[in-house]
């Protein structure tokens, strides 16, 4: 199955998730959220959302708890850097693939 019959012959992307490809595969480190430290989780209120605000890929939701879309998260670590309570930790992606294999 190829792209022979695709409607365009150029690179033409429209607004929407993932039109730059599945960039989650670029990730070396994965952001992991600890709800015990996360402000909206602790208070059960719409608050903080600094991670949502700073994520350059728009893959963090403004929800309780914030959800990170790992299909497109490139693992840049900005969310972990900006979180005022250090609720997000960047963890080696290899740990997760090793777990998956077990």
């Amino acid at each position, binding site marked *: *199955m*190829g*792209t022979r019959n*695709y*409607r*365009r*012959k*150029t*690179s*033409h*992307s*429209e*607004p*929407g*998730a*993932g*039109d*730059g*490809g*599945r960039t989650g595969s670029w990730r070396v480190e994965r952001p992991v959220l600890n709800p015990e430290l996360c402000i909206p989780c602790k208070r059960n209120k719409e608050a903080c959302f600094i991670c949502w605000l700073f994520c350059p890929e728009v893959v963090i939701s403004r929800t309780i708890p914030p959800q990170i879309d790992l299909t497109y998260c490139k693992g840049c670590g900005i969310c972990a850097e900006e979180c005022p309570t250090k609720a997000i930790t960047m963890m080696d992606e290899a740990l997760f693939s090793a777990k998956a294999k077990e």
Partner: protein
Amino acid sequence: MHVIENGNVAAALGVKLCRAGVIAAYPITPQTPVTEKLSEYVESGELQAQYIPVESEHSALAVCIAASSAGARVFTATSANGLLYKHEQVQWAAGARLPIVMAVVNRAVGAPWNVWNDQQDSISQRDTGWIQIYCADHQQILDSVIKAYWLAEKASLPIMVCYDGYILSHTYMPFDLPEQEKVDAFLPPYRPDYALDPDQPANLNTVTLPDVRMDVRGELAHGYMEIRCLLHEDMRKFLQTVAEAEERFSRIFGRSENPYLEPYRCDDADHIAVGLGSITYQLRVCVDALRSEGVKVGVMGVRLYRPFPDRAIAEALKGKKRVMVFEKALSYGYEGALYSDLKSALYEHLAGTGSLPAVQNFIAGIGGRDIRTQELTDALRFAAQGHTAPEPVWIGLKL
């Protein structure tokens, strides 16, 4: 209507007749009069177009890329180092599949600085994904511009219309100027599949991954390699499109030509001289002189250089004794680019058939060095007598 004008005006008249909507160019000798003439047409209202002055050739083509993406019919023109300065945008226009028409008024490239004619500028852009058409007189310049718009828009490919600086750009020659109604009948208004539209926002030609991807509609979209392969495939298909354009042109304008090659006294010739542009008309004088000496020689101009009409060339040269390729450019460290391409076509189509001609490369007119007809005739006679050299022979060199 017959007019007597110079080659640059012939190009500008073609652009006017095609109703280009956006013109952006930066002046460089010997191209400058094309853009001056077009700015006059725009200023006087003869041509309803936006003339956008820019600070460089790179910007000129960037303006054309943007305007073409917005659905405008666009034109630019340049020469020599101006073309080289555009090079990054030249590649871009091809990958973006924009039907831009650009006149390249051939001139030598620096260093050292030189404003005279050779063809190193456009030949150095051979591998960019642009169509290259070469002209040998003013009628061809005018007609090629008109055909180029139809072809570019049909094939979604940018086209360079190349003609020799001074020899064609600044000399006066009579040519037929077609009526506007005929050009309008030949060339409908440009209607692209997609033009920039705030109601349908899109990113054009952004980072495209090595592999294919799902687009936002869930359809499998091309990766970079697929887009580039389609560019190549459509360049090859252009060999048919150009024949279609010729048929359409002849129906409306009542004149036609071979879109690939322009042969002169080739049918019964044993030896064929091959070249690009005005040198092929000068070679006709040499051919006539040698014919009167009993040497059966002809000359064949290559009109379409990219895509390369390999099959038509091999067919035309099949069974000839010798082929002499005269070039005003070369791939430094090897030989003339046309010569390499021609040999490749002969090998591809004639190897093993027993009808492969012997070949010889000549380099002439580099940096505007006078090409004397006598020297050209002597070179042709020498090669026709069977003399060969392992390297390209430089005509008129004073080393």
